[in-house]
């Protein structure tokens, strides 16, 4: 894409690629560590520990492959990314989980997510968005809870309905 700087040497070590390789190797280690605690109960053939070891070997090989790709700088070019909106959305998800976890109910939880996501995409009208979010999640709650009889978690707001 446009971010590829022609002046740069085309082959340089890709740090992110190295991190990916390290994570894969770590995952392989976790699999093997977990499989050691399993007892092979099968009289014939494979026990429950065989497959994790097979997958772990695959992951280890792929860690090596990714490591080589990263050393050669063989990874596709990446455009710059803006971390702020990503963090905002993650805060929204964390809020949602916390509100559900503490029994705040569906409407408040999803409204919090709606407002933070909308802000992450550049909206600054938090009050307007909050009203939209509350109305929308209330409608969804009623539609799913009453019409489709799916049980969504109820909090103080839901009990008023």
């Amino acid at each position: 894409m446009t971010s590829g700087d022609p002046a740069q040497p085309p082959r340089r070590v890709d740090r992110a690629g190295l991190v990916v390789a390290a994570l894969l190797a770590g995952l392989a280690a976790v699999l093997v560590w977990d499989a050691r605690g399993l007892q092979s109960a099968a009289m014939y053939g494979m026990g429950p520990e065989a497959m994790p070891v097979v997958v772990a070997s695959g992951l280890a090989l792929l860690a090596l492959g990714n490591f080589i790709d990263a050393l050669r700088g063989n990874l596709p070019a990446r455009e710059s990314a803006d971390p702020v909106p990503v963090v905002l959305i993650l805060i929204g998800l964390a809020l949602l989980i916390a509100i559900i976890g503490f029994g705040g109910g569906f409407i408040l939880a999803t409204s919090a997510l709606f407002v933070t996501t909308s802000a992450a995409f550049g909206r600054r009208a938090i009050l307007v968005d909050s009203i939209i979010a509350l109305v929308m999640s209330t409608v969804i709650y009623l539609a799913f809870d009453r019409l489709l009889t799916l049980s969504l978690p109820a909090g103080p707001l839901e009990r008023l309905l």
Partner: protein
Amino acid sequence: MMDTFAALAHGMAVAVQPMNLLYALIGVFLGTAVGVLPGIGPALTVALLLPVTYKLDPGGSLIMFAGIYYGGMYGGSTTAILINTPGESASMATALEGNKMAKAGRGGPALATSAIGSFVAGTIATIGLAFLAPWLVDFAVRFGPEDYFALMCVAFVTVSATFGDSPIRGLTSLFIGLTLGLVGIDKLTGQARLAFGIPELLDGVEVTTLAVGLFAVGEALYVASRRHHTEEKLEPVRGSLWMTKEDWKRSWKPWLRGTMFGFPIGALPAGGAEIPTFLSYSTEKRLTKHPEEFGKGAIEGVAGPEAANNASAAGTLVPLLTLGLPTSATAAMMLAGFQQYGLNPGPLLFAERPDLVWGLIASLFIANCMLLVLNLPLVGLWVRLLAIPQPWLYAGILVFATMGTIAAKPSVVELSMLAGFGVLGFLMRRFDFPIAPVVVGLILGPIAESQLRRALAISLGDPMTLVQSPISATLLAVALIALLAPFVLKGLGRFKANED
């Protein structure tokens, strides 16, 4: 042959019951409405709408699914044409020419040729499905566990390694999926694997949580992170919606050729509709009488790839229904839809619940007809959906995405997993790892493991059983070739490049 007609007639009788027609209509409508939203492909459409079907009986829910599936496909192409954001790589070819047509004020005919082409291709491919399926089922009942295991190896390799940009990154995605598939209680011995003492993990990773996390949350994070790069522009639909005589003349052959590419490639466990769509695009480019229009909005370049896309979608239902083998993310979500009722597609389901399977196939025909009738007149409504401002659009998508999980399992652990998979999806998009192999790995991994263990238990632990069955030996050889081919071809390519 006669059996197929009888079975299909029986399926039609199931599908035209008023309630089932209503389910199909709701499915088509919802599928299109969700599929038309930018950034939402058919797989995510199916995943997001799964909770809507929780409370229906299996028959009605699968019929609604058929509608959602085709509706999502159609909605995706509308987005590709009008805002040039293909929801999935299979719509890329459509976006290429279709968006140019819309810019030139020919958005109406572009939408029309894609709708009619989808109808033609979908109908022919569904007929193909109806005739191919019983034949494959006859073949598949002879499969032993070792043959199934070998078949899944083929699917693993073709989905992840053979056709992607980088076999290493594709296989990495697959193995992440296989790892997730190990989580939970081992069915044969009752021991917990990778549960780390968390009770919610004992049931394993929910397919919908993974898919919605990777596709919806991941996509929202990714689009948000690079909002400063792209400005999306919605092309208004100007002028006539209808195709001229000339448009028809230029469209019908590409529709048929696209179908011929799409159905067989979709029906092979090769995964993905990208290959047939691009094959169709390059073929039309070569055969056209108007080569100067290509790249500037040639109607053949919309008609062919759209037909190929739809035909291959129907094609992927062949291995899904007859063998229980999902070869695309969308097919994987359909399988999740079956599994929520404890149904496992495959030869047994054809024998035990013919009403379900043939009702589903018949509903595909009906959904296709409904789409044709509904979509062109309603195009104004879909366009208005496209005009939702981006902040509200993605906020709404995330609310719906989390709602599915909240409705299924309102636990902190499950929601944290959803968020975690979202981050994973974001990172995979950013570093160019394909997403579909993760979902396929999660679904097929445990099935492949249990088939392999069954095969080895039958053979008293002798691994030679895998190569003693001719079917299994052939399939394993195919898998090996498909695994090595991209590496060998890449080596050849490098060799050639050095020679120049």
